[in-house]
């Protein structure tokens, strides 16, 4: 058996958290070092994974399979393919960067980093687990640390936001659990293996598929989040501390989209076809509605949070397309949105750390006082509004392009979202950076080196994918075309 790279990636943070558990509370520096090393180890391994990944093959790679609960035929089964490899990298990268960005945490550091690393493991496990039970377990493991991370280190309404997040996502995921069980019992022989189910799932009758699809949908839609299940998101994002907002928006939302890619669509093919119109409509609503609501926000962070709702609409739209282009767009949009929004939340954090307010109207003219910050903010805002040449564009473009032949009107309306998005991001830039200098912030300092360090890797990725999208697309193309073929979608 070869080196179990995925196991190492998934459990490196957990090992770190166990170490932290036995580190004295007072020794904050050691705790930080352990956390950073653990996430860095996972990052290095995932880079290695990217290097060794054979992207011309649609098959599952680096598979690890060991008996786990034989009596119910559940296996410890990990693997990575083109769909998950990017998200694994995204998770490790953001975990690492957000870990560096966590130095602003001033209280209860031991607990913080312990939970933080636990969260990392949960997220990574979700993206690698190929057994439903394992997948569900990791999926749920994410909830608890997140609850604490928002609830303890969050903002003013942290308790409300934390419990809301918890209940909301749990409510979604219990239905997913029922869906998993239903899949298990409808398969012969009974299995939880996602790959096996992908082969056999199509044999189910449409009505059964639809029921199971809805069960999974409830779980995933809350995470994505899809209108009208999105209201936990602004609260959670706004109240969470910066690094956690980064992970929330950067990784957690992707878990829902990933679920669609990994489970709902490949296994429940007929139901997926049955539901593409609602998907497209919901995607459109997400895009337009999210953008319009974002426009009305006066709180910087809330605006970015709603922009996530809007952007995740493109994922839904791309999924609805049933075309390789749309799928590629949707998957890439998840990655890109992860990178860009992570950057945006870091930038919100930078500003909040200095000004202790996020009210957009209270700023103005910061472009003079914080030129580097202004540049960074502009680039990420532009990437977010889909400026060609930066990464956000290409994925939104492909989503829309893929959806166009199936849903013309919806695509047209959705592309209006691009205009609204441009509107609120530029309005945000105008209110923060442009205009006359607000004297209140005359002493504000520009972004510092550590903060830059967290942003620059993201910036580089944004630019590279924007200029040469194949650099990211190449990992997923083979897997996506296999998926489309499997689904009987349009392969262009």
């Amino acid at each position: 058996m070869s080196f179990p790279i995925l196991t190492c990636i998934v459990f490196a943070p957990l090992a770190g958290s166990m170490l932290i558990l036995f580190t004295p509370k007072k020794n904050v520096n050691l705790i930080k070092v352990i956390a950073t090393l653990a996430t860095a180890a996972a990052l290095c391994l995932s880079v290695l994974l990217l290097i060794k990944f054979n992207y011309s093959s649609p098959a599952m790679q680096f598979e690890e399979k060991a008996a786990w609960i034989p009596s119910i035929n559940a296996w410890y089964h990990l693997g990575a393919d083109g769909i998950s490899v990017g998200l694994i990298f995204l998770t490790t990268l953001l975990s690492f960067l957000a870990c560096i960005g966590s130095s602003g945490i001033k209280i209860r550091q031991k607990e913080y980093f312990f939970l933080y690393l636990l969260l990392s493991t949960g997220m990574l496990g979700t993206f690698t687990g190929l057994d439903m039970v394992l997948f569900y377990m990791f999926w749920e493991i994410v909830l608890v640390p997140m609850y604490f991370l928002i609830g303890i280190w969050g903002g003013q309404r942290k308790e409300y936001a934390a419990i809301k997040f918890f209940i909301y996502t749990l409510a979604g995921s219990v239905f997913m659990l029922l869906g998993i069980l239903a899949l298990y019992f409808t398969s012969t022989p009974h299995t939880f293996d996602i790959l096996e189910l992908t082969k056999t799932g199509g044999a189910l009758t449409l009505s059964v598929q639809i029921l199971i699809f809805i069960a999974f949908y409830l779980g995933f839609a809350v995470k994505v989040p899809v209108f009208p299940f999105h209201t936990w998101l602004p609260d959670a994002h706004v109240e969470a501390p910066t690094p956690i907002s980064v992970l929330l928006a950067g990784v957690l939302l992707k878990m829902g989209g990933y679920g669609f890619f990994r489970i709902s669509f490949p296994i429940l093919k007929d139901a997926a076809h049955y539901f593409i119109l609602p998907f497209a409509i919901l995607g459109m609503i997400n895009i337009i509605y999210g953008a319009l609501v974002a426009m009305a926000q006066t709180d910087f962070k809330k605006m970015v949070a709603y922009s996530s709702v809007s952007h995740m609409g493109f994922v839904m739209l791309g999924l609805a397309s049933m075309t390789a282009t749309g799928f590629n767009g949707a998957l890439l949009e998840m990655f890109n949105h992860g990178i860009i929004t992570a950057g945006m939340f870091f930038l919100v954090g930078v500003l909040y750390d200095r000004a202790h307010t996020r009210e957009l109207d209270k700023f103005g003219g910061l472009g003079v006082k914080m030129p580097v910050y202004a540049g960074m903010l502009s680039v990420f805002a532009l990437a977010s509004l889909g400026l060609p040449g930066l990464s956000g564009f290409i994925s939104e473009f492909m989503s829309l392009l893929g959806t166009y032949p199936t849903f013309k009107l919806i695509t047209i309306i959705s592309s209006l979202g691009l205009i609204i998005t441009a509107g609120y991001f530029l309005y945000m830039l105008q209110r923060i950076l442009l205009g006359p200098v607000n004297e209140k912030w005359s002493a504000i300092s520009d972004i510092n080196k550590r903060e830059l360090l967290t942003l620059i890797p993201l910036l580089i990725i944004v630019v590279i994918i924007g200029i040469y999208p194949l650099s990211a697309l190449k990992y997923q193309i083979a897997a996506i075309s296999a998926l489309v073929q499997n689904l009987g979608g349009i392969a262009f």
Partner: protein
Amino acid sequence: MVKFAHLIPIFPFLAFAILILFGRKLKRSSAIISIAASLISLLIVILTFHGLLKGQGSYKLFDWLVFNGITLRVGVIVDPLTCTMLLVVATIGSLIQVYSIGYMSDDPRFSRFFAYMSLFMASMLGLLLADNFVTLYMFWEGVGLCSYLLISFWFEKASAAKAGMKAFITTRIGDAGLLLGIFLLFFSTHDLSFSGLSAITGHPALYTTAALLIFCGAIGKSAQFPLHVWLPDAMEGPTPVSALIHAATMVAAGVYLVARCFALFFTHQPALVCVAYIGAITAIMAASIATVNNDIKRVLAYSTISQLGLMMIGLGVGGYSASTFHLVTHAFFKALLFLCAGSIIHSVHTQEINKMGGIFHKMKITGTAFIIASLAISGVPPFSGFWSKDEIMTEILRSGHPMIFIAATITNLLTAFYMFRLIFLVLFGKPRSELHPHESPKTMAIPLIILSIFAIFMGLPGSPLMNNVFQRFIYFGAEHTALSSNPDHFVMGISVIVAFLGIGIAYALYMLNKEILSKSIRNRFTGLYDLVYNKYYVDELYEFLFIRPCARLSKAFSGFDLKVIDGAVNASASMVVFLSKAKAWIDSNIVDGTVNMIARAVGMLSGELRKMQTGYIQSYLLTAFMGLILILLLKIIGG
């Protein structure tokens, strides 16, 4: 030497990268880097041009994007149209950057300015070289971005910040159309390259729609009606920016786009006619606004819109060569006009023409250049504008659109009028406020001189005097070359008459008259004047029709989100809590009540039990017992 064409945009981009990273250390030398990069690009452009003349052409570079089955292979397009445009852009760009050294010398963000300028050069050159819709779209947005950045370059001014946003969003509306047009084309032809356009056949309605959607992009970028509102506001940017981006190059990209897709438009005449009429409306409307506006740059901005409209007319009537020819000449004289305006503003620190006057003798070079450019745009022979406008007029007449011909003629009349209104009010007469005009520094003056030379002579390649070299170089199809070779003396005559008429009216109204604009005339046409002066109320209309509803919708949705959706969820949560309380309450009250009731029922059997009081344990027991009874009943009834 064509094979280096793809390097053209790279040098300015490198300059941008260097300046954005190390700009603060470089300070003044930023300009040198930026200009050097432009000059290197210019050199390569010349080499490419040379190669093109030798018969080399477009080539492919690498796979850029793969949709399943279809690989998008990007390359560069090297043909007469692109090469000419490249030459124009690189030349004017370099000159304006030199000019900017003087103009921007006091600015604290000097190097940032040059960084943006370099980025713009890179994007614009890339746009011209793009050989497919996707890369074109990328650079298209890239120039839009630079436009945004440079319009709001002095972002401390709230108006500048707003203008930038307005420009970006307005053009983006057009871009959304362009994007959809690209989708439509892609799904009909499965091809995104320009070279495939000429092969399109069938589905006329579909392709006409596609063409119109693409034209939407052009409308936004070239500030055509109804998306023209952003360009006048864009004048908030530094004047070199207005000259380069909002006069000479970027705004012409819309015209370039239509020219680039001319094969599609030409085979789908309804779209082409639409182009012509949009152009005509724009031309005459903008020209009329220009006649009453009092801001020197805004007058020029409306003039630009009007001239772009003229180019659209040219394309719309099938005058491919004529239109591109006007594009080239216009680029030079309009850039020159802006630079002159910039020079004047730089020295008198105001843009209000009402406050200027009689500065010609203090600024001879600028003044002369201004006059040359005005003559060129007014269509006075033998300046460049005369030849190119004449070509367009000829094409209009030949195509048989009398309405458009009349509109174009009126536009020309108005053009001559407002240009000379400017000249008379700004350069001549008496100063109307305290002014201390002085000639601008050499870095600013030299580009003026060079551009003046272009403004005078650029018309010659397209004139019969030089045997219509231009038309023989850039043409669409074969027959056009032959057609446009013969000078049409009727049209020439009308053009000349119209030009001089316009100048004459301006002279009569503004030089002979003591007042700026005689009250009597203004009073007679109050309604019309107000309409024109307020730019036909288009901005207000948009505000009323789109912006406010959008804002209201946004607010409404936000409220909806907060109250209704969240409210619903919270309500169900509180329902649970309520239920919980209710259950607890039921436990303590209803159960008791039931107990009372049943106790009474039992009490009817024996009157003794009436006074029975229930205690809590017994209520528990009763619940349990009644539960059991219920279960038994269910069992017995249900079988």
